């Protein structure tokens, strides 16, 4: 206010000087008649009004009218108020003064407003740069709060992150507005009392935080812009965290897989010697029965360890997405005959039959992995059915592919477990003494799904039937050549 008085007094002083100068010029230097004088005063008033506020303009109009009246209107040297010409002159001066004054003050305030907006834009730009170019390891919250305080001249800033519950502060003063910050987030509306504004930070959804400011007034646009920038900054931090978490997880999987590969190699080395020795020993016909029995145990357990290690490695490869399919044209009938033949000694005494429908189409598949999957189903059937019961394998074809059915006469799998058996490490309850790691079905299904098929359990009268579908070559040919196995390869 004091500043405004000073300005006012200065303006009045200047206008007084101008008027006196004009008067002196018109009387002494260039003596003019009343009309000319009136016009000169008008110009003076216009000038004064453009450069001063309304009060000065009105005051100058009055003063100019009095001078004009006294020095130029007849009778000169006297104030004649009665003459209507006088009043018209006054009116003219006043109107001109008013109009000029309003126009110029309007223009000045517009210019002020424009300058202010430019400044605001510059601040916003600086703020956005500071926020968006911040490195990933800079603590964004406190950085943002401080930047807002600095750039926008706020005395106190408080930034509240709803997800982590942290509050970041900036500025010289303290702003104890915890409850207001939380309220803004919950209600999603702006809360303001006087100098302190608390606004929620929203990015196309529920509020993710709130911002409290104490300082010079913000324009609505600027405030909104700041809130948006803060929202974007928050989201950016979250996205970065998610991405690096994913990357860390993937690296950890790859590390696990590499480690597991190395360990498997380490296991296979002594297993090789054990297996070579045990089989060599057992091939001797004249072993004492007890020695033969012990040797058989060593041999079988070595096999078991070997398959455990192989399964674990395969599973870790699947998890790490590292397994690759090598597709060739596969005759499923021939593939299955090979697999069934390999079961020879293991299916001792049991009937393991294979029925192949004629005219089976060839499919494009990785023969090793498909053999593994089928072996797993047959192995399961042998393990979970009575020792003397038959296991029947059947292949037929449908319009979209080839179907392999493995049927056993065991107790079957109740409907509620039919999805669970395919999970990792699932062992059927009450069958804890059956050897295995619980990974077989998981691996088998992952393999088949990557080929575009699936493994499921069919409803049958008695016993248990697993079905495997392998799509036709044509469909697969559309997906390109080698595919990577992933645990959630979707159908």
């Amino acid at each position, binding site marked *: 206010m004091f500043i405004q008085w000073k300005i006012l007094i200065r303006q009045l002083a200047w206008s007084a000087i101008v008027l006196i100068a004009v008067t002196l010029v018109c009387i002494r230097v260039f003596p003019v008649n009343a009309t000319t004088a009136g016009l000169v005063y008008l110009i003076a008033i216009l000038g004064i009004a453009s450069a001063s506020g309304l009060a000065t303009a009105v005051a100058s109009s009055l003063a100019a009218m009095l001078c004009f009246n006294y020095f130029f209107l007849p009778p000169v040297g006297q104030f004649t108020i009665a003459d209507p010409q006088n009043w018209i002159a006054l009116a003219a001066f006043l109107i001109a003064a008013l109009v000029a004054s309003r126009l110029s003050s309007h223009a000045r305030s517009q210019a002020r407003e424009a300058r202010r907006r430019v400044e605001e834009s510059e601040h916003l730009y600086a703020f956005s740069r500071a926020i968006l170019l911040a490195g990933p390891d800079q603590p964004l919250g406190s950085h943002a709060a401080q930047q807002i305080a600095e750039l926008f001249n706020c005395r106190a800033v408080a930034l509240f992150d709803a997800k982590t519950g942290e509050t970041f502060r900036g500025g010289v003063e303290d702003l104890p507005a915890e409850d207001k910050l939380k309220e803004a987030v919950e209600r999603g509306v702006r809360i303001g009392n006087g100098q302190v504004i608390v606004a929620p930070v929203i990015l196309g959804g529920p509020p993710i935080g709130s911002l409290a400011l104490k300082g010079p007034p913000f324009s609505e646009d600027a405030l909104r812009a700041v809130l948006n920038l803060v929202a974007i900054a928050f989201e950016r931090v979250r996205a970065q965290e998610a991405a690096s978490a994913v990357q860390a997880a993937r690296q950890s999987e790859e590390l696990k897989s590499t480690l597991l590969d190395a360990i498997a*190699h380490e296991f*296979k*080395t*002594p*297993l*090789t*010697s*054990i*297996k*070579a*020795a045990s*089989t*060599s020993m057992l*091939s001797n016909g004249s072993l004492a029965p007890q020695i033969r029995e012990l040797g058989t145990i060593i041999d079988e357990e*070595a096999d078991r360890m*070997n398959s455990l290690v192989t399964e674990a490695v395969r599973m870790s490869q699947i998890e790490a997405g590292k397994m690759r399919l*090598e597709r060739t044209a596969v005759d499923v009938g021939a593939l299955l005959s*090979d697999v069934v033949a390999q079961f020879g000694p293991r299916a001792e005494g049991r009937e393991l039959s294979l029925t192949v429908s004629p005219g089976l189409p060839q499919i494009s598949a990785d023969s*090793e992995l498909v053999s593994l999957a089928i072996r797993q189903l047959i192995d399961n059937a042998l393990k979970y059915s009575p020792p003397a019961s038959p296991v029947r394998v059947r292949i037929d074809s449908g319009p979209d592919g080839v179907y392999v059915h493995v049927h056993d006469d065991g107790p079957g799998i109740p409907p509620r477990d039919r999805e669970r058996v395919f999970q990792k490490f699932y062992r059927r309850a009450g069958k804890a003494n059956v050897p295995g790691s619980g990974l077989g079905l998981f691996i088998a299904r992952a393999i088949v799904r990557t080929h575009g098929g699936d493994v499921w359990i069919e409803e049958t009268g008695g016993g248990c039937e697993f079905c495997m579908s392998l799509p036709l070559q044509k469909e697969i040919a559309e997906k390109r050549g080698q595919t990577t196995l992933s645990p959630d390869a979707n159908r």
Partner: protein
Amino acid sequence: MNVGRILVVDDEPQIRRVLRSTLTAEGYEVRDARTGEDALTALREERFDLILLDMNMPGMGGMETCRQIRESSEAAIIMLTVRDAEEDKVAALNAGADDYITKPFSTPELLARIRAALRRLPVAAQAHPESIHLPGLEINLPMRRIVVKGREVRLTPKEFDLLQYLLANPNVPIPHGRLLQAVWGPDYGGQVEYLRVFMNRLRKKIEPEPSAPRYLVTEPWVGYRFVLPGEADRL
């Protein structure tokens, strides 16, 4: 009774130990080597009928050792591989091995493969009394000499046996199974990839243009055929 001389190459002492014990019991004469370099040294000093070569060895690995052995020796080579992948098998055969077996293996199976690798087809003298002359290729079966464009070419025993069997039934497609059983033995029949690799090796050695074979022709889905043009000159 010495059934043959075998060189065992593996960096693992226990594996060398168990193989020595088993092979000696079968009547083979066994020497072992720890590394690829030692194996090459041993080969320079003595003659061996068969080499058991581990694929994963530190230093000069199994594949490189196999290639270097093939430059100077036609001894039978069986590679011991760790992984069961097809690419490993094909790589082993392409490097010059005659067969491979995956660790851990059962000894009877290994012994069967050793027997198959050491097996030689008797040369049926009456079928081809002398040489067969073809443009750019001269085959002398009784003397086991092959000359390609004037230069003598050395075939490994399995490659020679394969060629010989195909020649014994010229111009007729011979199924994969029959070829495998004749050359490798009755335990074999389904290993079509062996044939593929060996035929490629043969083609590279004796065909004037290996990528467009004139003599060793593929019969799609069936097998292979040796094309003996008309009545080729038989001296």
